[in-house]
């Protein structure tokens, strides 16, 4: 199973990569919107974790582009700020506020891939 991690923070990229690989997933990383879309096409990930605040493009727009391409790929919005009242984020399968405790993120991935 392949996870696409979209986040511009280098340390978080590394943390997610190591943690997810420990769980037995293959992990690919994108640091901005442009890379994310390219890799979404070329790498065909099974699931995506998507930060909302990205340097080049709004994560919600990215969410939309990905859903238009392949609506069945689950996307987890992982953000540093509360966007729950923006209904657009509801197009994603899950919404998680970033935390140093990755248990919730990991169990959500497991649940979404298990379906």
């Amino acid at each position, binding site marked *: 199973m392949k996870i696409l991690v979209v986040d511009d923070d280098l340390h978080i990229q590394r943390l997610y990569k190591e943690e997810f690989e420990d769980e037995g997933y293959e992990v690919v990383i994108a640091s901005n919107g442009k890379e994310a879309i390219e890799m979404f096409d070329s790498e065909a990930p099974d699931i995506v974790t998507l930060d909302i605040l990205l340097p080049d493009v709004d994560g919600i727009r990215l969410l939309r582009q990905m859903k238009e391409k392949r609506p069945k790929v689950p996307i987890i919005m992982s953000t540093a700020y509360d966007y729950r009242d923006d209904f*657009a984020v*509801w197009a994603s399968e899950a919404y998680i506020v970033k*935390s*140093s405790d990755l248990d919730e993120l990991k169990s959500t991935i497991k649940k979404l891939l298990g379906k």
Partner: protein
Amino acid sequence: MDTAHKQKLAEIIFENIQDSIIMLDRDYRILAVNSPAEKWTGMTASDLIDKNCIDVFHDITGICPHCAAKVTFETGEVNIVTQKGNLKNTTYYAELSVYPVKNETGEVIECVIFIQDITERMLSHEDTLGLYNEVTQTKEYLEGIIENSADAIVTSDINGIIKSWNKAAEKIYGFNEQEVIGRYLPFIPDSLMYIEKEYIERIQKGETIRHIETKRRKKDGTLFEVSLTLSPIKAADGEVIGISGISRDISERKRIEKELISKNLELSRLFFISSAMRGTLELDKLLRMVLTAVTMGNGLGFNRAILFLIDEDKDTLKGAMGVGPVSQMEAGQIWERLEKKTLSEIIHDIEVSPMKKDSFFDRLSHGMEIPLSEETILTKTVKEKKLFNIHDVKKEPLSDLILIQQLGTEAYAVSPLISRDKVIGVIWVDNHFNKRPIAEEAIRFLSAFSNHVATAIESARLFEQVALAEQELENIFESISDMVYFISKDYVLKSINKAVCRRLGKPAEEIIGKKCYEVFHGMNGPWAECPHHKTVEIKKAFVEEVEDHHLGGTFIFSSSPIFDTTGEFIGTVNIVSDITELKNLRERVVMAERMAALGEVAAKVAHEIRNPLVSLGGFAKRLEKKLDGNLKEYADIIVNEVERLEGILNEILGFVKETRVVKEIVNSISLIEEVIYLIKSDIEERGIVLVREVDEPTEMHIDPNRMKEALLNILKNAVQAVGSNGTIFIKTYVKDNSAVFEIKDTGEGIAEEDLPFIFDPFFTTKKTGTGLGLTITHRIIEEHTGSIEVESKPGTGSTFRVFIPLK
């Protein structure tokens, strides 16, 4: 009537009439005289007999019956003159009417003179005119206020048919005057119709409804918020005859505020025009008496009579009242009944009994209107100021078609009503039922009679207009929610409306006559900041926003100078609006903007701090797993401290961790009702029928806001699928320990190939959809561990069922 009866009638009239009657021969010798004549001469009636009229009248009182009689002896015509005299140092007026008495050869041998004391009438005319001018002047100030008021001022009759419409109404609602006058309140959204009916009922009972905040519809269909005050318009007798509505577009308060500043000071002429011709009971009674006198068997004896009055605004002759039977049979009944009563008895009845206006003939008369620009017998009567007797309508090309068509008249007579050299209307008569030709004799009486009644009608009408104008003036004055008051140039409050009393919490008696600076600003002398003070100083209108601690708030003061007819400055008219609330609102907006800016900062901070914390804590955890002893403990401390910091961050930013829903106990029925309410106006505007079938209410543990969003999206889709004029069924019930919401429409349905994708994000078949509605619905229901199912057939509609598990 036989001769004996006539004789008797003549005797009774001769002795009981209040007018003086004198009979003279060609040498002006007094042949007969009644007792009222005594007051003009100071001699008893019996002493006057055989005296020469010249000797007993003119020198003593200054009036001159023989001068009037001279004309009649020379011309053989009826002569009516008004004379001014002086008796015991008092000025008085008399109207003398001279009627010729002719012998068989047509020579005038004697004449009968009626002398009527019209002093009171003339004096009251002058009073009335004075009063009228005064009111007209005040009226103009208020007309200005209405016309250029920033508030829409709309008046309607008691049924909501619009009568006047000011500039602001046009601006706010988008309809111009021609589009709304005569229509039923077109700016009320359909969904509010029933509430509006309640308001109208309350106003009909005389209630004033102040400051309701409600919705209105513009001409282009957009809805907007207004603040509305509705008040009854009352006639002089207190009866509610209309509604005045003052509304303000509160979504654009600021704009209005500016307009208020630029032109706050006039009134709508229209407001008054429409009602100027309206009759009150007193005028009606007078008209009724006149017409009864014309048609009574022992009066002038015509079968039918209609009184037309000139409507100067429309330049038409308009039916004001009609008296007469509708059919030959009714005519018979009426004559039979009336013959038992004398004219004076009947006149008395009219005076004391309530008016019955609704006879068919009267209604018919009311509908008649003849433009004065047309050339007909009726309009000629007005223009040429003379009487016409049409013996056969078929031979008279100018016969009024309206009379022939609606009344079936074959012959008729029309006499002008002339008051102070001006034609105010006409009396029309015919003998439709007994077909008796209208004799010259009857005509002459009609003519003389018309002259008598014209002045009476004119003054009744004038009085009435004054009363009405005053009443309307007062209504507006009192209905305006802003404080309105007049101050003389020496700072004394002359007149105030109720809003002033309410604001100051004192009755009017304690305010009027006081100095304005004491009452309003709590000062001992004029306040330099006060717009009235500035107006007094430079005689120009001033409008300013003033914070007045004594009144307790922020106000827009608008003060305009009033000049009397000679151009002298006499005081100011002031309109004061309390804008404290508006100002507070403004301040809150500024505050909210500041908070929003803070929020943005918080979002930035959150991002900048949370990310490092995530990697810090995340790596510390990884470290912890690989270490042991003291080092493991140190890593553990880092992990815990990071978690503590994250907790603080969440708290500051108001985060609820993890979940997207905040649950509480919610009642299924109130939930679905709130959802329906959100889309109600759309449903009503499209003419969609909503059928509810709700079970017993069920308590659910859900996030009400999220769940409303979920159901609303389904309902919105249903409304769009139906388009217009279809039906939507909403059912709630409990099945298999789940609350079920079922929304079924009779719309276009969903194509079979689309059905598997409808919950996918950004999937839409609509031109304007975001493709997120049903996705969001689906997610929300999933978060509640519920489920959704859909059945649909193209052409017949769709059914959505939402299942929410009960605990």
